[in-house]
C-alpha cells in the first residue's frame, strides 16, 4: 500500500515539472511582455525599464528564466506579480483557496444529487423516474456553463436573492465573524450550484449503469435466491461494488470541474484561479500565468492522487498488486 502510494506521489513530480516547463515555453513564445506597454510611457525612462527587466530576469533567455523561477518556487516563493505589485504567493494562495472552495462545494452538491438519483434510476429501471432522470441528465450534459452562469447572473439580478458576482460584500471587513461567514456562504451558493449543475449528469449516468451492471451479477441473483430482502440485496451487496468504479471517474470529473470553474469564475466574478489567469493574461504578467496554470494542474493532480488513495483503500487488489 505504502509503496504504491509513494510511487504515485513520485510520479507527480516529473508531471508538474513538465507542465511548468511547457507553460514557461508557451509564455516565452508569447509576443511582448509586461514591460512592452510600459516602455510606451514617456514618464518611464528606458533605464528604469531595463533595470526592472533585469530584476525579473526578463533580459535572459527563457530557460534561464525558468531556472530562476523554479529555484524560487522550490523555496516556496512564487515571485512577484508585476501587474499587482505584490508578492505572487499571497495572491495565488488566496485565489487557490477560493477556487478550491468553489469546486469542493460544487462537487459535494453534484455527488450528493447524482448518487441517490443514479441509484433510484437504476432500481426503478425503465419507470418514468428512470426516464425523467435520463432526460434531465441529457439536458444537464448539454447546457453550456456559459449559458448557465449567465442565467444565474440574470436570476440573481432579477430576484435580488443572491449577490451579483464577487466572493464577499465590500463591507465584509466590518462584520462580526458570524456575519462574515454568512456573507461568504451567501456569495458561494449560486456559483457552486451552477458548477454542480454542469457536473452531476455524468456522475449520475455512471452510477446508474454501474449499479445496473452489478444487479445483473450472479451473486446478486444468489443473494435474492437465499431470500434476502430487496433493500438488503441492493444496498448491502450490489451498491458497494457499484460505487467502486465511480472513484476512477472522480479524476475526470475533477478536470471538468476545474475547467467549469474557470468559466463560472470569469462570468460570476468569483475571485479564483481562473479569473486570476485571465487578469494575468491581459496584463501580460507571464510569471503569474505560469503560476496559475501550475497551481490548477497541482489541484487536479492532488485530486487524482486522493482518488487513487480512495481506490487503494476500497479495493484490496490494487493495494496488494503493486
Amino acid at each position, binding site marked *: 500500500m505504502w509503496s504504491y502510494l509513494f510511487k504515485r506521489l513520485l510520479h507527480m513530480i516529473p508531471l508538474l515539472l*513538465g*507542465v511548468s516547463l511547457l507553460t514557461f515555453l508557451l509564455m516565452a513564445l*508569447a509576443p511582448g511582455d509586461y514591460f512592452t506597454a510600459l516602455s510606451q510611457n514617456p514618464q518611464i525612462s528606458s533605464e528604469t525599464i531595463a533595470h526592472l527587466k533585469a530584476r525579473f530576469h526578463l533580459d535572459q533567455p527563457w530557460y534561464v528564466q525558468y531556472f530562476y523561477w523554479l529555484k524560487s518556487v522550490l523555496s516556496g516563493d512564487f515571485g512577484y506579480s508585476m501587474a499587482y505589485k505584490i508578492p505572487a504567493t499571497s495572491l495565488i494562495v488566496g485565489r487557490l483557496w477560493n477556487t478550491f472552495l468553489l469546486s469542493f462545494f460544487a462537487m459535494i452538491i453534484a455527488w450528493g444529487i447524482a448518487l441517490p438519483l443514479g441509484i433510484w434510476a437504476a432500481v426503478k429501471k425503465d419507470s418514468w423516474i428512470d426516464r425523467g432522470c435520463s432526460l434531465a441528465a441529457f439536458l444537464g450534459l448539454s447546457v453550456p456553463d456559459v449559458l448557465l452562469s449567465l442565467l444565474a447572473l440574470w436570476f440573481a*439580478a432579477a430576484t435580488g436573492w443572491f449577490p*451579483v458576482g464577487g466572493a464577499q460584500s465590500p463591507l465584509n471587513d466590518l462584520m462580526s465573524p458570524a456575519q462574515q461567514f454568512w456573507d461568504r456562504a451567501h456569495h458561494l451558493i449560486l456559483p457552486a450550484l451552477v458548477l454542480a449543475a454542469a457536473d452531476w449528469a455524468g456522475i449520475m449516468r455512471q452510477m446508474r449503469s454501474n449499479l445496473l451492471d452489478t444487479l445483473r451479477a450472479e451473486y446478486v441473483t444468489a443473494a435474492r435466491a437465499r431470500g434476502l430482502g430487496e433493500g438488503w440485496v441492493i444496498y448491502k451487496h450490489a451498491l458497494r461494488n457499484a460505487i467502486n468504479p465511480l472513484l476512477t471517474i472522480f479524476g475526470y470529473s475533477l478536470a471538468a470541474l476545474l475547467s467549469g470553474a474557470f468559466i463560472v469564475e470569469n462570468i460570476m466574478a468569483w475571485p479564483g484561479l*481562473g479569473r486570476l489567469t485571465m487578469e494575468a493574461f491581459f496584463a501580460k504578467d507571464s510569471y503569474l500565468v505560469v503560476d496559475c496554470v501550475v497551481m*490548477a494542474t497541482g489541484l487536479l493532480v492532488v485530486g487524482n492522487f486522493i482518488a487513487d488513495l480512495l481506490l487503494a483503500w476500497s479495493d484490496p487488489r490494487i493495494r496488494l498488486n503493486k
Partner: protein
Amino acid sequence: MNEATPIQNPTAEQPLSPWQLFWRRLKRRRIAMAGGMILIGLYLVALFAGFIAPYHFERQDRDRFFHPLLWPKLSGFHLVVPRYEAGDGSFVYHPVAGDTKPLRFFLRGDKYKLLGLVPATVHLFGTGDENYPVYLLGTDQFGRDVLSRLLYGSQISLSIGIIGILLSFTFGMMIGGISGYFGGRTDTVIMRLCELIMSIPALYLIISLRATFPPGMSSAQVYAMIVIILSFIGWASMARVIRGMTLSLREQQFVLAARALGQTHLKVIMRHILPNTFSYVIVAATLSVPYYILGEVVLSFLGVGIQEPNASWGNMLTAAQNTEYLRNYPWLLAPGAAIFVTVLAFNFLGDGLRDAADTKS
C-alpha cells in the same frame, strides 16, 4: 429457346454488411435520428445563412438599439410588419397603430456571398423598407439584428467544431497508431506527452496557448488559431485510446499476414489497424464536437477569440454579461439557446451511435 424457364432469384438474402447492420440499429433509435435531423437542419441553415438572414451582420439600425422581438402579424391573408416608434429616453418602443408594411419574400437587400463564393442580394424575407424592419430576435446594443448575427455566427461556431475534430482526430489516430504499433521508446515518449497535455485543466492550457499568438490578427487568422489551439489539446485523449486499441490489434493474425505480404509499417497502420478503430472514432468524434464548439464560445466570450464586428455565438454572449442588459433585454441570450440546442443534438446523436456500435447488447 422458348423452353427456357426464367431464372429464379436466389432465395437466400444477401448478408448485411456491418455498416448496414449499424445503420439498421441506429434507425431504431428515434432520439438519435432526431438529433441527426436537427444537426442537418442547423448545418444547412449555416450554409445558407446569408440568404436566410434578413440583414448583413454588420448592419446597424441607429434608431433602434435594444429593440425587442418584432414579429410580423397576420392581417387578412397577408403577413404585415407593424412600425414601432421609439419612446422617450430609455429604449422603449411602441407600435404605431395602423401603420404597417407587408412582409415580402425573396426580395433584394444587403449584399452577401452565397456559400461564401457567389455574390448575391436576394434574401428569404424582409420588408425592403428601412423604416419597417423585421427583428425576429430583437436587436443588440449597436442596433444590429440578433437573428442575422446568430445565423452568420453559426457559420463560425458550427464549422469550428467539425474542422477541429477532423484535424485533431486525424492527428490523434496517426500518433496513437504509431505509438501503439511500434511501442518501446517512441511509445513512452508520446504517452508521457499525452499525459502532460491531459493533466492541465483544459481552459488553463487554452489560455496559455492563446498567449503565444500576437494581437491584431485578421478574422481568418483568428479562426485558424482557434482550430489549432483546440486541436492541440484534443489529439492527446484520442491518441491514448487509439494506442490502447492498436496494442491489441497488432497481435491479430491479419496484421501478421499483412506484414508477411511485405507491406510497409505505415501501410499496415493506415490500411489495416486504423480502419478497425473507426466505429469507436466516429462515436467519440460525435460526442467531442460539443467541446470544440464550447471552446470557441468560451474564447470568443472572454474576448480573445472571434472579434467584433464579426459574429460568433461566443462573442454575441459577451453583451449578456452586463447584468443591466441581461435584465432588460433577455433576447441577448439567444445564442446561448442556439448552443444548447446544438450540443443537445450532438449528444443525442452520439449516444445513439454509441448504442448502435455496441454489438454486445
